[in-house]
């Protein structure tokens, strides 16, 4: 795997492209534009960029106002503050009136790294997924991030996009297609269905490769669109794998991708869903790679987990 790019960087670039094409796009940030990468948009289109200062609640309320006036609004901060501090504004002033605000939040999950637990949200997917009208997307690489931004700009409603600080390998070709509510099967194998999102997709693919070397063929499903969830493909792949499913996410196993998958499959009957993620604990300081190792999310850990299921 050659090229690496953080999804937040891809977001920053995609916004500039979008701003060129669409005059109705405005971008808000809360004093983190250098980190969320909205700084690129700010430089390209200063009149359409609004730095709201360290005031995430005010930013979300202001975003709602811009949307009422017909703008396509992108609002960015760290995932912790966008979904945590501003939760109730997002819920009541953005999702309830179904306004056209895209909450694109970076620094999600453990791979924030050295800043530690106060900044490492492992519950944002759960929180956002629970809100009616809110869509939730976790792009897996830079290419997919760009496609996501293009796609949601044309969708008139609230969307949460979870982005990462850490660089990750490019997995998809430039002609990769993203659609809300659609997943992609990236590998086919009958032993187990691995369902992953975000940074964990590349690890899932690596794990699948390692398993193959042991003669075990697994399926890998990219579930970037967590809500709406591609129930049809999920069920097909799960059936193909004899009902054995393993979800992988850089998020708590409560309420995130694993929960979303388990909830759906539980309604259909006999499936075994093993959720790999953060097990009801907070993160801590450390290098992103060390943290993923510590929390047992790296490919060889995934291999071990998979083996125990097969």
């Amino acid at each position, binding site marked *: 795997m050659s090229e690496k790019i953080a999804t937040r960087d891809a977001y920053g670039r995609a916004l500039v492209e979008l701003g060129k094409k669409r005059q109705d796009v*405005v971008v808000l940030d809360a004093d983190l534009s250098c980190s969320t990468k909205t700084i690129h948009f700010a430089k390209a289109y200063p009149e359409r960029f609004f730095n709201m200062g360290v005031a995430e609640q005010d930013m979300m309320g202001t975003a709602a*106002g*811009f949307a009422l006036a017909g703008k396509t609004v992108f609002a960015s901060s760290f995932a912790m503050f966008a979904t945590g501090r501003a939760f109730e504004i997002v819920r009541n*002033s953005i999702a309830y009136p179904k306004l056209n605000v895209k909450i694109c939040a970076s620094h999600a999950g453990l791979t924030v790294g050295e800043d530690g637990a106060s900044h490492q949200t492992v519950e944002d997917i759960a929180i956002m997924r629970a809100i009616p009208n809110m869509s939730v997307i976790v792009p897996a690489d830079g290419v997919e991030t760009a496609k996501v931004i293009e796609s949601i700009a044309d969708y008139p409603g609230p969307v949460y996009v979870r982005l990462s600080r850490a660089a990750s390998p490019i997995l998809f070709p430039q002609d990769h297609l993203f659609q809300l509510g659609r997943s992609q099967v990236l590998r086919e194998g009958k032993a187990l269905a691995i369902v992953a999102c975000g940074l964990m997709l590349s690890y899932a693919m690596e794990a699948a490769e390692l398993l193959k070397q042991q003669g075990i063929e697994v399926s890998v499903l990219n579930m970037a669109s967590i809500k709406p969830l591609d129930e049809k493909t999920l069920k097909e792949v799960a059936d193909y794998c004899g009902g054995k499913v393993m979800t992988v996410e850089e998020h708590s196993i409560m309420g995130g991708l694993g929960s979303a998958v388990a909830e759906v499959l539980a309604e259909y009957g006999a499936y075994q869903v093993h959720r790999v993620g953060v097990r009801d604990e907070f993160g801590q300081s450390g290098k992103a790679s060390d943290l993923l190792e510590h929390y047992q999310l790296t490919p060889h850990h995934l291999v071990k987990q998979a083996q125990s299921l097969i």
Partner: protein
Amino acid sequence: MQPIQDPEKLKEIARLLRIDCLKMLHQAGCGHTGGPLGMMDLMVALYFYAMRHDPKNPHWEDRDRFILANGHTCPALYVVLAYAGYFPKEELQHLRQLGSPLQGHPKRKVEWGIEMSTGSLGQGMSIGNGLAMAARLDARDFITYSFHSDGEAQEGMLWEAAMTAGYRGLDNRIGILDDNGIQIDGYNKDIKDVSPLKEKFEAFGWLTRSIDGNDMEAIMAALDWARLREGKPKMILAKTILGKGVSIFENLPKYHGVAPNDEELAIALKELGGL
């Protein structure tokens, strides 16, 4: 709509709408009574004197915008919108009923003149700022009004937004703060005194004017002042009487959040000349 210039006519509308408001709340059997009665004069002056809007064209892009930040007082908004002709008056009797667009707290429905969903206190000022910033960006000349309350001023987010409007000098932005001194648990001064509001807003970069919010002539003058663009957002600090117009409700915290019963309604209607 053509503005009504005659304060006597506006006062008469306020009287009629207080009656509608009480009947509606009585019918619903629950809801907030005190706030809406106290702010009725302000609401009537806004919708029938100051604001540029057209009930026949609710989506008009250049209409002035109104955000009711203290959403619990929506009965006052609903009767004003019905009177203006946004929706049939009969709909008022369905307040708070299953399926009715007239929710217990406002739910956005632009066709009916309800610009935004509100109810969670403290959010409306930011929303109004976003509208005003968008207007400025597009060089549109509509004004964004937001309505606030003294209890709401205890919410931190309101001050984040006040700072934004002040810092950005949003002079297409008018706030009205209904300062009746009462909130749910009692008198504001006994819970967490929000005063001095004038000094606070001025320190945040607003121009302010303090008025008697139940004096129609004073309200009209303040709104004339507020619509002048003077490089800063404007805040009208309106002292009002909770429950205004009905002696048994006036200034009593109890009536912040309960609807009138049969007996209270009868007394109220008599006092307001509604029988």
